[in-house]
């Protein structure tokens, strides 16, 4: 069965420090991968998505970046964190959609980031 791992679960970082959040998927090949941010426990903001190794699409201009060095590994990074980067970061994967329809997303357990 497919599983998604995301770590760390919580993180407290000072302003200006770097960030690296990692997400890995097991049990599937060539998944679509996504990074979302959720502020104040509400809506999900799509940050990045990837349909393959090295292929990253950015949805929101910001000081964050993403990379996909391996098929099932997705990394969210920042060189210098801002206070506004605080939030709940969620990684998700889905199978590549077919003409039949779109598959549901499976989310990781998330990382609660507090920038102080």
């Amino acid at each position, binding site marked *: 069965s497919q599983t998604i791992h995301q770590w760390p679960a919580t993180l407290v970082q000072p302003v200006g420090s770097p960030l690296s959040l990692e997400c890995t998927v097991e049990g599937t090949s060539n998944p*679509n991968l*996504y990074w979302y941010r959720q502020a104040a*426990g*509400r*809506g*999900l903001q*799509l940050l990045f*998505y990837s*349909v393959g190794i090295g292929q990253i*699409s950015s949805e929101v201009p910001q000081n964050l970046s993403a990379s996909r060095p391996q098929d099932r590994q997705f990394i969210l990074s920042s060189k210098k964190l801002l206070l506004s980067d605080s939030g709940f970061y*969620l990684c998700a994967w*889905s199978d*590549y*959609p077919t003409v039949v*329809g*779109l*598959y*549901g*997303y*499976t*989310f*990781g*357990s*998330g990382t609660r980031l507090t920038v102080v």
Partner: protein
Amino acid sequence: GQQVMQIPQYQHVQEGEDFTTYCNSSTTLSNIQWYKQRPGGHPVFLIQLVKSGEVKKQKRLTFQFGEAKKNSSLHITATQTTDVGTYFCAGRHAGGTSYGKLTFGQGTILTVHP
């Protein structure tokens, strides 16, 4: 940009009452999905609707997709305390080039008083 609007933002109900949340899109959707996020947890996929006018049921939950494929609803009959959480709809806009990318609604936070 393409948006999916979801109402209400909050809903407080007494246990045993019914609950409904609605999603509306300005453009036609290829399909729509529903997710539930328990407090402190991550969103969990509930169901996908694809066909115009489609209705699906999961126990006390009824999901509908509008005839024009621009709106959807989730109805919970006789709510229980285990129904507490945030319910999200998410749609893929028809004809989009971002294959597979969903647009999420803002969610409806449901609280149930025992």
